[in-house]
């Protein structure tokens, strides 16, 4: 159970960190508002599936009148129905994920539009300030996700029975690996070279005919879509959505820490950093009582360690564990073959001329 939970959390955070790495590492946008898109994705999961399932399974209209109040009864009825009809559960899952990505992208667009033409630090401050807006709304507007108490989400994996957590972890890991592959292909594409050019020198990039504001907006929308996906997957994993879960610390500062720790601008480094950090946090939580000899409360150990690690990393190795490397567009073997052919032809030509 420990390992399964660890892998699931690792997969969710990996998706989020890869999105941050796309924005921070490749395009140079300091996005301090990751939490906004994550909350958007999670709130979609809190709002949509329960209404969709109530409509599909024709749950009693008296109960459906007040979804937030009768939340527990409705969700248990839906779970019973999904146990006999797994396909509907899968359909709801995929549809909700697509909607959550759309919501995340929209939120990324809206939050970055006012400051997209200004300097990068203005953009960072705007994103930071707007980050918690959605969770304030969620806390006060009950029909969205049930106010402060939160809302239970129908378990679309309830047809798996006892194997639920194992299989959902496999699905999450597959999603993370898929995101990793897509972003790794993206990192080797001409598009990403444009991003890097923009990151290194905006003036030069715009003099080459690149619309810097537009590219930034595209990167932010793409990154926010991926962040929304991560938030939605987390909500489906825990089967609960509440505004208190989506704080700035867990969903903005921890991903930043992991990305800086692993290596900005290197997807493999980000994966490594995420793995180390999640394992460390999980171990501290799991073996809390073994740390009883410490002179302070164990609760603070996690924060102390994270803070000291970030300071050490910034002092001794500012580029992270794995440095950013020039991305290879074709495999190494093919590259060597081409170089060999070119040099052979060159030597032949020299022989002929002699």
């Amino acid at each position, binding site marked *: 159970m420990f390992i399964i939970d660890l892998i699931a959390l690792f997969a969710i955070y990996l998706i989020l960190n890869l999105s941050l790495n796309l924005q921070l590492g490749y395009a140079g946008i300091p996005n301090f508002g990751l939490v906004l898109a994550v909350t958007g994705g999670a709130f979609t999961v809190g709002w949509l599936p329960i209404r969709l399932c109530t409509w599909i399974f024709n749950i009693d209209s008296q109960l459906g009148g007040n979804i937030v109040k009768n939340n527990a009864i409705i969700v248990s009825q839906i779970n019973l129905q999904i146990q006999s009809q797994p396909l509907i559960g899968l359909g709801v899952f995929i549809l909700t994920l697509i909607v959550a990505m759309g919501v995340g992208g929209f939120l990324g667009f809206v939050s970055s539009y*006012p400051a997209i033409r200004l300097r990068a630090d203005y953009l960072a401050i705007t994103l930071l300030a707007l980050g*918690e807006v959605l969770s304030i709304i969620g806390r006060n507007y009950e029909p969205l996700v049930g106010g402060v108490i939160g809302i239970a989400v129908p378990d679309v994996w309830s047809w798996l029975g006892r194997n639920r957590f194992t299989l959902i972890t496999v699905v999450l890991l597959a999603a993370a690996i898929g995101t990793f592959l897509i972003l790794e292909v993206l990192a080797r594409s001409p598009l990403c070279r444009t991003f890097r050019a923009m990151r290194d020198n905006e003036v030069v990039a715009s003099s080459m005919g690149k619309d810097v504001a537009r590219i930034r907006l595209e990167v932010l929308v793409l990154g926010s879509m991926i962040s929304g996906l991560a938030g939605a997957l987390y909500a489906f994993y825990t089967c609960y959505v509440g505004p208190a879960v989506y704080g*700035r610390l867990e969903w903005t500062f921890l991903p930043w820490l992991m990305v800086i720790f692993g290596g900005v601008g290197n997807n493999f480094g980000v994966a490594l950093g995420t793995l180390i950090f999640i394992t460390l946090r999980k171990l501290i939580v799991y073996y809390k009582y073994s740390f009883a000899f410490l002179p302070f409360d164990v609760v603070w150990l996690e924060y102390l360690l994270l803070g000291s690690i970030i300071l050490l990393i910034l002092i001794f190795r500012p580029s992270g564990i794995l440095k950013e490397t020039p991305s290879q567009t074709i495999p190494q073997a093919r590259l060597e073959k081409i170089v060999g052919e070119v040099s052979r032809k060159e030597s032949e030509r020299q022989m002929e001329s002699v």
Partner: protein
Amino acid sequence: MNFWANQAFFGTSVSLLIGFLMVLYFILNYTKIGVALKACVCNPMLASISGINVKYSNILSWLISGGLGGVAGGLLPLWVQGKPVLGDSLLAIMFCASIVGGVEEIYGTVLGGFLVGFTQILGTSALSLILGPAVIPYKTIVPMIILILTLLFAPNGIAKVNWKKILTIAKFGGASKRKA
């Protein structure tokens, strides 16, 4: 809290604000250290060429801002309830105030702070009279709306807005534009 305690607290905080503001304005505009700090912000490389130690300037500015933050933090629990998440809850509003005022002039922050604070309290109470008490919990969103409006229409903050130009346009109906 009785009336005189309120008055005393208000007097202390405002006089501290005015004192720090005057000292900072003097330092930033009329001493070598202040000019060096400004030069480091504008162009660090050029500043280091002309003999300014950029690293120490950065450390000095962090020192000053940290100390001022400490003063504000010491005054805060006298007025509102102190709690561990106090700083986190004020984070967004502080950034809003500094951006609305403009980060290039020291008095811009005061303007922005007063504007954001008054709009947050008075604006929310006015809205609650019109729309009912349901809007009161959303008062933390008001500064964000001001922030977005500022960034869209006056991205350098209200301290940098060219009021003379706007007033002439308002007076002569855009005639000055045609003349120029």
